[in-house]
Protein backbone atom coordinates (compact mmCIF):
# COMPACT_ATOMS: atom_id res chain seq x y z
CA UNK A 1 0.00 0.00 0.00
CA UNK A 2 1.14 3.47 -0.74
CA UNK A 3 -0.15 6.84 -1.75
CA UNK A 4 -0.98 7.25 -5.43
CA UNK A 5 2.05 8.75 -7.23
CA UNK A 6 0.01 11.51 -8.88
CA UNK A 7 -1.42 12.47 -5.49
CA UNK A 8 2.09 12.63 -4.02
CA UNK A 9 3.22 14.82 -6.88
CA UNK A 10 0.25 17.17 -6.66
CA UNK A 11 0.15 17.51 -2.88
CA UNK A 12 3.90 17.24 -2.22
CA UNK A 13 2.92 14.80 0.52
CA UNK A 14 4.44 11.36 1.00
CA UNK A 15 2.44 8.43 2.32
CA UNK A 16 3.77 9.02 5.84
CA UNK A 17 2.74 12.70 5.64
CA UNK A 18 -0.79 11.81 4.61
CA UNK A 19 -0.91 9.15 7.31
CA UNK A 20 0.10 11.85 9.82
CA UNK A 21 -2.87 13.97 8.73
CA UNK A 22 -5.19 10.95 9.11
CA UNK A 23 -3.71 10.24 12.55
CA UNK A 24 -4.05 13.86 13.69
CA UNK A 25 -7.63 14.06 12.44
CA UNK A 26 -8.68 10.78 14.04
CA UNK A 27 -7.03 11.59 17.36
CA UNK A 28 -8.64 15.03 17.43
CA UNK A 29 -12.14 13.72 16.61
CA UNK A 30 -11.89 10.94 19.19
CA UNK A 31 -10.46 13.09 21.98
CA UNK A 32 -12.87 15.99 21.37
CA UNK A 33 -16.16 14.30 20.51
CA UNK A 34 -15.78 10.77 21.89
CA UNK A 35 -13.56 11.32 24.93
CA UNK A 36 -11.14 8.58 23.93
CA UNK A 37 -7.37 8.96 23.59
CA UNK A 38 -5.96 6.78 20.82
CA UNK A 39 -2.65 5.21 19.90
CA UNK A 40 -1.77 4.99 16.21
CA UNK A 41 0.25 2.09 14.84
CA UNK A 42 1.13 3.20 11.31
CA UNK A 43 2.16 1.62 9.00
CA UNK A 44 0.10 -1.50 8.36
CA UNK A 45 1.88 -3.81 5.95
CA UNK A 46 -1.09 -5.53 4.31
CA UNK A 47 -4.32 -4.26 2.84
CA UNK A 48 -7.51 -5.23 4.69
CA UNK A 49 -10.70 -5.55 2.66
CA UNK A 50 -12.70 -8.16 4.57
CA UNK A 51 -14.23 -7.44 7.95
CA UNK A 52 -15.94 -9.65 10.54
CA UNK A 53 -18.67 -8.49 12.95
CA UNK A 54 -17.74 -4.96 12.04
CA UNK A 55 -19.22 -1.69 10.93
CA UNK A 56 -17.75 0.70 8.37
CA UNK A 57 -18.53 4.39 7.98
CA UNK A 58 -17.47 5.91 4.66
CA UNK A 59 -17.54 9.28 2.99
CA UNK A 60 -16.68 9.86 -0.65
CA UNK A 61 -14.71 12.74 -2.13
CA UNK A 62 -15.19 13.97 -5.68
CA UNK A 63 -13.52 16.81 -7.55
CA UNK A 64 -9.85 17.56 -8.06
CA UNK A 65 -9.26 14.43 -6.00
CA UNK A 66 -11.46 11.35 -5.89
CA UNK A 67 -11.46 9.03 -2.94
CA UNK A 68 -13.04 7.36 0.02
CA UNK A 69 -12.30 7.97 3.69
CA UNK A 70 -13.50 5.09 5.83
CA UNK A 71 -13.44 3.99 9.43
CA UNK A 72 -13.78 0.25 10.04
CA UNK A 73 -14.32 -1.02 13.56
CA UNK A 74 -15.62 -4.05 15.38
CA UNK A 75 -19.26 -3.74 16.39
CA UNK A 76 -18.33 -4.11 20.07
CA UNK A 77 -16.08 -1.04 19.82
CA UNK A 78 -18.67 0.86 17.78
CA UNK A 79 -21.09 0.42 20.69
CA UNK A 80 -18.53 1.98 23.08
CA UNK A 81 -17.85 4.84 20.67
CA UNK A 82 -21.54 5.59 20.21
CA UNK A 83 -22.21 5.37 23.93
CA UNK A 84 -19.48 7.92 24.60
CA UNK A 85 -20.67 10.24 21.83
CA UNK A 86 -24.26 10.23 23.05
CA UNK A 87 -23.51 10.12 26.77
CA UNK A 88 -25.79 7.11 27.21
CA UNK A 89 -25.43 3.34 27.12
CA UNK A 90 -26.02 1.94 23.62
CA UNK A 91 -26.36 -1.85 23.63
CA UNK A 92 -27.22 -2.83 20.06
CA UNK A 93 -26.06 -1.90 16.59
CA UNK A 94 -28.89 0.17 15.20
CA UNK A 95 -29.70 3.66 14.04
CA UNK A 96 -27.61 5.42 16.70
CA UNK A 97 -24.46 3.43 15.92
CA UNK A 98 -24.95 3.80 12.18
CA UNK A 99 -25.42 7.54 12.48
CA UNK A 100 -22.42 7.92 14.82
CA UNK A 101 -20.03 6.04 12.52
CA UNK A 102 -21.28 8.05 9.56
CA UNK A 103 -20.67 11.30 11.38
CA UNK A 104 -17.16 10.25 12.41
CA UNK A 105 -16.38 9.45 8.78
CA UNK A 106 -17.84 12.83 7.81
CA UNK A 107 -15.60 14.70 10.26
CA UNK A 108 -12.50 12.78 9.15
CA UNK A 109 -13.41 13.37 5.52
CA UNK A 110 -13.78 17.08 6.20
CA UNK A 111 -10.33 17.19 7.75
CA UNK A 112 -8.72 15.40 4.78
CA UNK A 113 -10.61 17.63 2.38
CA UNK A 114 -9.05 20.65 4.09
CA UNK A 115 -5.60 19.16 3.50
CA UNK A 116 -6.29 18.58 -0.19
CA UNK A 117 -8.50 21.50 -1.14
CA UNK A 118 -7.46 25.06 -1.85
CA UNK A 119 -10.63 26.74 -0.60
CA UNK A 120 -13.13 23.95 -0.13
CA UNK A 121 -15.06 24.37 -3.38
CA UNK A 122 -12.98 22.06 -5.59
CA UNK A 123 -13.79 18.88 -3.67
CA UNK A 124 -17.27 17.72 -2.66
CA UNK A 125 -17.96 15.36 0.21
CA UNK A 126 -20.73 12.80 -0.13
CA UNK A 127 -23.37 12.08 2.47
CA UNK A 128 -21.87 9.28 4.63
CA UNK A 129 -22.58 5.62 3.89
CA UNK A 130 -22.47 2.99 6.62
CA UNK A 131 -22.46 -0.78 6.27
CA UNK A 132 -22.25 -3.53 8.88
CA UNK A 133 -22.50 -7.30 9.02
CA UNK A 134 -21.12 -10.63 10.14
CA UNK A 135 -18.69 -10.67 7.22
CA UNK A 136 -18.32 -8.28 4.32
CA UNK A 137 -15.74 -7.22 1.77
CA UNK A 138 -15.16 -3.70 0.51
CA UNK A 139 -13.60 -3.29 -2.92
CA UNK A 140 -13.10 0.27 -4.14
CA UNK A 141 -10.48 1.63 -6.52
CA UNK A 142 -7.02 0.11 -6.27
CA UNK A 143 -5.63 -1.31 -3.05
CA UNK A 144 -2.31 0.26 -3.94
CA UNK A 145 -3.67 3.83 -3.70
CA UNK A 146 -4.47 3.55 -0.04
CA UNK A 147 -3.23 4.87 3.29
CA UNK A 148 -4.29 2.53 6.07
CA UNK A 149 -3.81 3.45 9.71
CA UNK A 150 -4.54 1.09 12.61
CA UNK A 151 -5.55 2.63 15.94
CA UNK A 152 -5.92 1.16 19.41
CA UNK A 153 -7.81 2.26 22.49
CA UNK A 154 -7.04 0.02 25.46
CA UNK A 155 -7.81 -3.51 24.19
CA UNK A 156 -9.84 -2.34 21.19
CA UNK A 157 -8.52 -1.68 17.71
CA UNK A 158 -9.89 -0.25 14.48
CA UNK A 159 -8.75 1.03 11.08
CA UNK A 160 -9.02 4.28 9.18
CA UNK A 161 -8.38 4.05 5.45
CA UNK A 162 -7.97 6.73 2.83
CA UNK A 163 -8.11 5.78 -0.85
CA UNK A 164 -7.20 8.67 -3.07
CA UNK A 165 -6.66 9.51 -6.73
CA UNK A 166 -5.81 12.73 -8.53
CA UNK A 167 -8.32 13.62 -11.25
Amino acid sequence: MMLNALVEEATHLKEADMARHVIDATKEVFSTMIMMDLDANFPLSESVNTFHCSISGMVGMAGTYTGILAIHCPQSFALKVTSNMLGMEVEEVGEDVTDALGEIANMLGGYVKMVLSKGGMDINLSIPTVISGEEYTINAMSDSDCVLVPFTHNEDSFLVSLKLRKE
Partner: protein
Amino acid sequence: MANILIVDDSSTMRKIISRSLRQAGLAVDDIFEAGDGIEGLSVLGEKSVDLILSDINMPNMDGLEFIKQVRANGNNVPIVMITTEGGEDIIKEAIASGASASIKKPFTPDQLNEKLGGML
Protein backbone atom coordinates in the same frame (compact mmCIF):
# COMPACT_ATOMS: atom_id res chain seq x y z
CA MET B 1 -33.31 32.59 27.44
CA ALA B 2 -33.00 31.70 23.75
CA ASN B 3 -34.77 29.20 21.52
CA ILE B 4 -32.32 27.46 19.22
CA LEU B 5 -32.82 25.45 16.01
CA ILE B 6 -30.20 22.80 15.18
CA VAL B 7 -30.17 21.68 11.53
CA ASP B 8 -27.98 18.63 10.89
CA ASP B 9 -28.62 15.33 9.10
CA SER B 10 -26.82 13.45 11.87
CA SER B 11 -29.04 12.76 14.88
CA THR B 12 -25.87 12.02 16.84
CA MET B 13 -24.47 15.44 16.04
CA ARG B 14 -27.76 17.14 16.94
CA LYS B 15 -27.65 15.44 20.34
CA ILE B 16 -23.98 16.39 20.85
CA ILE B 17 -24.64 20.03 19.94
CA SER B 18 -27.70 20.13 22.19
CA ARG B 19 -25.75 18.64 25.12
CA SER B 20 -22.78 20.94 24.48
CA LEU B 21 -25.03 24.01 24.54
CA ARG B 22 -26.28 23.00 27.99
CA GLN B 23 -22.76 22.11 29.19
CA ALA B 24 -21.42 25.45 27.98
CA GLY B 25 -23.82 27.18 30.33
CA LEU B 26 -25.42 29.21 27.58
CA ALA B 27 -28.83 30.78 28.19
CA VAL B 28 -30.81 28.18 26.27
CA ASP B 29 -34.55 27.59 26.57
CA ASP B 30 -36.08 25.32 23.90
CA ILE B 31 -33.95 23.44 21.36
CA PHE B 32 -35.63 22.39 18.12
CA GLU B 33 -34.10 19.90 15.67
CA ALA B 34 -34.27 19.42 11.90
CA GLY B 35 -32.59 16.82 9.68
CA ASP B 36 -32.08 19.04 6.62
CA GLY B 37 -32.82 22.49 5.26
CA ILE B 38 -36.37 21.63 4.24
CA GLU B 39 -37.23 20.45 7.75
CA GLY B 40 -35.47 23.52 9.12
CA LEU B 41 -37.69 25.85 7.08
CA SER B 42 -40.72 23.93 8.30
CA VAL B 43 -39.70 24.44 11.94
CA LEU B 44 -39.14 28.15 11.32
CA GLY B 45 -42.69 28.36 9.98
CA GLU B 46 -44.05 27.14 13.29
CA LYS B 47 -41.62 28.21 16.02
CA SER B 48 -39.97 31.40 17.18
CA VAL B 49 -36.20 30.93 17.08
CA ASP B 50 -33.41 33.22 18.35
CA LEU B 51 -30.43 31.38 16.81
CA ILE B 52 -29.89 28.73 14.13
CA LEU B 53 -26.97 26.30 14.15
CA SER B 54 -26.70 24.55 10.79
CA ASP B 55 -24.54 21.98 9.07
CA ILE B 56 -23.63 22.56 5.40
CA ASN B 57 -23.35 19.08 3.86
CA MET B 58 -26.89 17.67 4.11
CA PRO B 59 -29.25 15.77 1.78
CA ASN B 60 -32.40 17.29 0.23
CA MET B 61 -31.46 20.90 1.01
CA ASP B 62 -27.92 21.74 2.09
CA GLY B 63 -26.92 24.43 4.55
CA LEU B 64 -25.99 27.08 1.97
CA GLU B 65 -29.38 26.82 0.24
CA PHE B 66 -31.08 26.78 3.64
CA ILE B 67 -29.45 30.10 4.60
CA LYS B 68 -30.53 31.66 1.31
CA GLN B 69 -34.11 30.48 1.81
CA VAL B 70 -34.23 31.78 5.38
CA ARG B 71 -33.03 35.20 4.26
CA ALA B 72 -35.34 35.17 1.23
CA ASN B 73 -38.22 34.70 3.66
CA GLY B 74 -37.18 37.92 5.41
CA ASN B 75 -35.94 36.17 8.55
CA ASN B 76 -32.83 37.86 10.00
CA VAL B 77 -32.20 35.42 12.84
CA PRO B 78 -28.44 34.82 13.39
CA ILE B 79 -27.23 31.64 11.66
CA VAL B 80 -24.00 29.91 12.68
CA MET B 81 -22.62 27.12 10.54
CA ILE B 82 -21.33 24.07 12.45
CA THR B 83 -19.59 22.00 9.86
CA THR B 84 -16.64 19.90 8.77
CA GLU B 85 -16.63 22.07 5.63
CA GLY B 86 -14.02 24.52 6.89
CA GLY B 87 -12.73 25.63 3.49
CA GLU B 88 -12.20 29.36 3.13
CA ASP B 89 -14.32 29.65 -0.03
CA ILE B 90 -17.26 27.73 1.45
CA ILE B 91 -17.23 29.85 4.61
CA LYS B 92 -17.05 33.00 2.48
CA GLU B 93 -20.08 31.82 0.51
CA ALA B 94 -21.95 31.01 3.71
CA ILE B 95 -21.20 34.47 5.13
CA ALA B 96 -22.16 36.11 1.82
CA SER B 97 -25.45 34.17 1.92
CA GLY B 98 -26.23 35.48 5.38
CA ALA B 99 -24.43 33.33 7.95
CA SER B 100 -23.04 35.18 10.96
CA ALA B 101 -20.16 32.86 11.85
CA SER B 102 -18.89 29.31 11.59
CA ILE B 103 -17.71 26.64 14.00
CA LYS B 104 -15.61 23.72 12.82
CA LYS B 105 -16.40 20.14 13.81
CA PRO B 106 -15.06 18.66 16.00
CA PHE B 107 -15.63 21.25 18.70
CA THR B 108 -15.66 21.50 22.48
CA PRO B 109 -18.37 23.10 24.68
CA ASP B 110 -15.83 25.85 25.46
CA GLN B 111 -15.46 26.64 21.75
CA LEU B 112 -19.25 26.81 21.43
CA ASN B 113 -19.42 29.14 24.41
CA GLU B 114 -16.70 31.36 22.99
CA LYS B 115 -18.40 31.66 19.60
CA LEU B 116 -22.03 31.85 20.71
CA GLY B 117 -21.75 33.61 24.06
CA GLY B 118 -22.08 37.05 22.53
CA MET B 119 -25.14 36.06 20.50
CA LEU B 120 -27.30 34.77 23.37
